[in-house]
């Protein structure tokens, strides 16, 4: 039996799906397997050797000895790159186990054909050919392990393995919780709660949030409504956005964040992002919008430092066409502390509950589609529904806007929550709808049951058995009937769905991913954060040396990120003896800080 047959038979036992993919994988066209001086097989991709052309085993031995020094073999490790598997074989024989990430299943095939990797197959899982974003999200726990890169694999796969490895290191740095992030809120609209959720998640992860609360100027947008002509209001609002954008610059100058995070609709103009870039502060823009509906990404994406969106291939192509390559898919998610299971009173169930509910705005496709559900006990909550239509009897609170907390109650109280992604063009389920709306995650986070229209990106986010989906009215009606009669079935799906959201689709996870991407892509940010983290950890370690400082810090709500004013406010003069630390803070309070100390 040759190596390939032996290895594959083992793999088939351990991971039949992968075995199938490997079998189906074509030979790696650009990978040349040839003989090394030692007589063992080696491989190269174009000019880059994956293993030594002289003695691959010896090279692997040295690499593993260097990398594995101080790593506990009992802990699973994550290996970046398989190559022909020399280093993996070395690791396996040293008692290590874990997961190997490889970009190209054909490389795995070549490895399995070249060496006896039975011990590797026994001790390691292999992730081959998965989209990078899926690895980051679905397999995030892999990055908590010791990271062992195969240097040559990183060289031949810089955009996949190289990036993933940098990402993994950045994720670890981010988890030290030492980033300063200026969060630019939109003035109003659907992204505003998302911005607030991001800020909360950042804080929960230990980072410092510098809020830029554009919503404080929401009155300006209200004022714009007093103009008679739409053109006047538009022009006024543009001025307001420009003013706020200047404010972002000033705030950044005063506070020197590591990065600026702007949510869709945030008032940050391209020229401001250019200035921030000059200041060494990259801007992450999270475009939580459908790019086919709102075109302003054409101005924003090229101007920001890194663009995040909720759509994949189609959008990536469009962005590439205008020269934007710094783009990452970052789907929407839920705030698990807000969207949560509630135990409701019978009164609340009566007020908010229904066998079939929908919460959302009255987009065209919903207006059309929901007419086919009017024979159900159906409640529709939300705004922008036509005043006179066959749906009128079902619309709650005369079409008033529904606040978040009420949404949570409705989701919890309803047997079936309908979730139909909006569309202004089709009259039901959008046939080519790709992104997944926040509602999907929010209903699931509540532990509530939903029927959601099928979306192109949904299968990557939820596994079968975690959500119930439909493709048209007929299927929807069939499932409504089925699940209304099957409470345990609803409950099982809701429970699985919630677990998936808590594990992978919370704001905390998204923010971790966004920050790790930024830290990985901007070495200056990484250096700054590393320096700060080390500095603060050193100072914490020497606290005993500073008389009165531990006591003063104990009074701070968050000792990691307290401000000078917090420290000073906690000091009472004229009562008892001041500690040395208190005196020093009072000295600092009296050092005049001038504008010139905040260089542009």
């Amino acid at each position, binding site marked *: 039996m040759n190596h390939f047959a032996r290895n594959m038979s083992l793999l088939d036992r351990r991971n039949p799906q992968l075995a199938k993919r490997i079998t189906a994988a074509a030979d790696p066209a650009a990978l040349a397997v040839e003989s090394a001086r030692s007589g063992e097989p080696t491989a190269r991709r174009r000019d880059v050797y994956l293993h030594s052309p002289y003695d691959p085993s010896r090279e692997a031995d040295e690499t593993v000895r260097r990398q594995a020094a101080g790593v506990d073999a009992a802990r699973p490790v994550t290996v970046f790159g398989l190559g022909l598997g020399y280093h993996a074989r070395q690791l396996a024989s040293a008692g290590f186990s874990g997961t190997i990430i490889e970009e190209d299943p054909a490389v795995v095939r070549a490895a399995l054909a070249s060496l006896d990797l039975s011990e590797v197959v026994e001790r390691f899982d292999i992730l081959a050919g998965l989209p990078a974003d899926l690895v980051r999200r679905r397999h995030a726990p892999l990055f908590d392990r010791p990271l062992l890169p195969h240097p040559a694999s990183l060289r031949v796969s810089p955009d996949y393995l190289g990036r993933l490895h940098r990402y993994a290191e950045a994720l670890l740095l981010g988890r030290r919780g030492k980033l300063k992030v200026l969060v630019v809120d939109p003035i109003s609209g659907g992204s505003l709660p998302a911005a607030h959720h991001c800020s909360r998640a950042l804080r929960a992860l230990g980072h410092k949030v510098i809020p830029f609360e554009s919503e404080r100027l929401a009155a300006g947008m209200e004022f714009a409504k007093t103009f008679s002509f739409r053109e006047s209001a538009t022009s006024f609002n543009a001025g307001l956005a420009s003013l706020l954008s200047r404010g972002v610059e000033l705030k950044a100058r005063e506070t*020197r964040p590591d990065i600026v995070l702007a949510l869709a609709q945030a008032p940050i103009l391209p020229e401001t992002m250019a200035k921030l870039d000059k200041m060494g502060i990259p801007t992450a823009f999270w475009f939580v919008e459908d790019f086919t509906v709102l075109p302003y990404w054409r101005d924003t994406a090229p101007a920001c430092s890194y663009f995040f969106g909720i759509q994949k291939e189609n959008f990536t192509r469009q962005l590439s066409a205008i020269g934007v390559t710094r783009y990452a898919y970052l789907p929407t998610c839920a705030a698990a502390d807000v969207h949560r299971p509630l135990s409701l009173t019978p009164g609340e169930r009566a007020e908010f509950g229904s066998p079939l509910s929908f919460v959302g705005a009255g987009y065209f496709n919903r207006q059309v589609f929901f007419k086919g559900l009017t024979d159900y006990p159906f409640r529709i909550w939300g705004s922008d529904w036509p005043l006179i239509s066959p749906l009128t009897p079902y619309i709650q609170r005369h079409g008033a806007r529904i606040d978040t907390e009420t949404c949570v109650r409705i989701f919890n109280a309803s047997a079936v929550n309908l979730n139909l992604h909006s569309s202004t063009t089709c009259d039901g389920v959008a046939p080519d709808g790709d992104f997944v709306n926040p509602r999907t995650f929010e209903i699931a986070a509540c532990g509530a049951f939903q029927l959601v229209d099928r979306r192109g990106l949904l299968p990557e986010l939820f596994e079968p058995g975690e959500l119930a989906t439909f493709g048209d009215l007929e299927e929807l009606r069939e499932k409504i009937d089925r699940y209304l009669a099957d409470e345990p079935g609803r409950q099982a799906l809701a429970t699985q769905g919630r677990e998936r959201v808590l594990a992978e689709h919370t704001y905390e996870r998204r923010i971790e991913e966004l920050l790790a991407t930024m830290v990985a892509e901007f070495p200056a940010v990484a250096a700054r954060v590393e320096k700060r983290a080390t500095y603060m950890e050193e*100072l914490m370690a020497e606290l005993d040396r500073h008389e009165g400082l531990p006591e003063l810090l104990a009074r701070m709500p968050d000792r990691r990120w307290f401000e000078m004013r917090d*420290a000073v406010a906690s000091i009472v003069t004229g*009562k008892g*003896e001041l500690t*040395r630390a208190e*005196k020093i803070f009072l000295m*600092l309070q009296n050092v005049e800080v001038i504008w010139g*100390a905040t260089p542009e």
Partner: protein
Amino acid sequence: MKEIAILAIARYGDLIQLSPLLRGLKRTWPDARITLIVENRFSGILTMLPGFDRTIVLDKKAIAGWIALGDTPFVAYRQMEQFVRELEADSYDLLINITSSALSAFLSSVVRAREKVGIVADSRGQKEIRGLWGLYVFSWFNDSLRKYNTINLVDVFTRLGGVRPDGHRVELTPTAAGESFADEFLMRHALSGARIVGLQLGASEANRCWPVENFAHLSDRLQEQGIRTVLFGVAAEKELAEKAKALMRHPPVDAVGETSLEGLLSLVSRCAAVVSNDTGTMHFAAASGVPAVMLCIGPAFFRCTGPYGAGHVALQPDLSCTPCPYYVDCSEPVCRTAIPAEAAVNACRLILDGDYRGRSADFGDVRVYRSGFAPDGFLTWEGLFNTDEAEETLARRRERMWKLCLDGEVPALPEEPEDEGVRDFHRLMAEGIGITGRIIELSRIAPLPVDQIRELGSRESAIEEEIKRMGYRSGLVSPIANFLTMMRENIGEGDLATVARATRHIYETGRNMAATL
């Protein structure tokens, strides 16, 4: 060996103004080791300042930067803590804090010294001012009452340090580098052997600058008399210089932005006179023995911070609001244009032209003063033109009063003050002495006669209030009333008798002042 520390987190001007204090300390304790605690932004001048032995330097600008931009207050904390360590490293016999800021009070509090004068924060963070001369500065420094001050800060610093003014100017020692720069500069601009007047156009704030048009006129008039003019200033004042030059018919020599501190001192020392706003350049002139014409604009006040030495001329606009307090952000700075250019031309003639006697009309409405040293070694100013005799007399009376009372050299006192304007005040002081004396007596009785003491306390409080009211009503009384209020605020905690004795001391001081005024 006596260890003396001087806390001077201050600008160039203040550091130059320290020199007579340093001189006095070395004269009194020749083997004293003097440590200067200074800010590094202004420490460049120390190479020229004689009379100290070592420095401890605060990088205040860096700390301000860390406060503004530091990732965490820890960064600034660590920097300041390092500096505090340096302050704590030695112990001193005497600490003289010439700085009036809250920062200096806390810095002073960590210095180990047997005696401290100036502002100090106590162990609870309460600020107290030690030394009557220290109290004196604080009684007017940030107040509209500053205009009543008659004693130059240099003399105040000197007395705060416990030494006597010696009737000599501030001093800086030129360096070889500065001298060679000046030689080369004069050569390069064909100024060797010429009579030069230096013009300092800028000041710390735009509202404190005499208009460039006036400087242009002054420069042209001087040049027409065969005097060469040189413009001084830092690089940031280049634009101002260009504006002035554009208005001049006869081009001056432009040294703006070209001089180091050392070069500036040496260049200034080659001038026959310097005309300046209230700036470091003016103090450089004083330190070089070069007569200066001080243009008193905004808060600039010759009696307070005028050039320290004999023979300087001060031009003070005759406006009721000048000098204004430092904190005023004036929307209509009429004082900027109140000194006519021709007045400065004539002020220069007073210095340069031995035959020129001058007339009031030569100076418009501007008051003209000339500095000199009094027999006791303090700086004093003589009114030359457009001054009010009664005001000048009052200034001299105040000068005498403060010197006598703050130094505790009060002569035999008359029953009643000669000046009717302070008789009521004097009576109030006597009443205060009586009441506090009675409280001291009662404090010795056991059990304490609480009701009686309370009644006396109420009467004493009423006197305190009346002192303040008198101060608000009368310009004659206000500096004294403010000083006494400052003394009262400075009384620390203590038992009844201690507080009563301290309060009686306030009334005694007030009585002495009213009587000697």
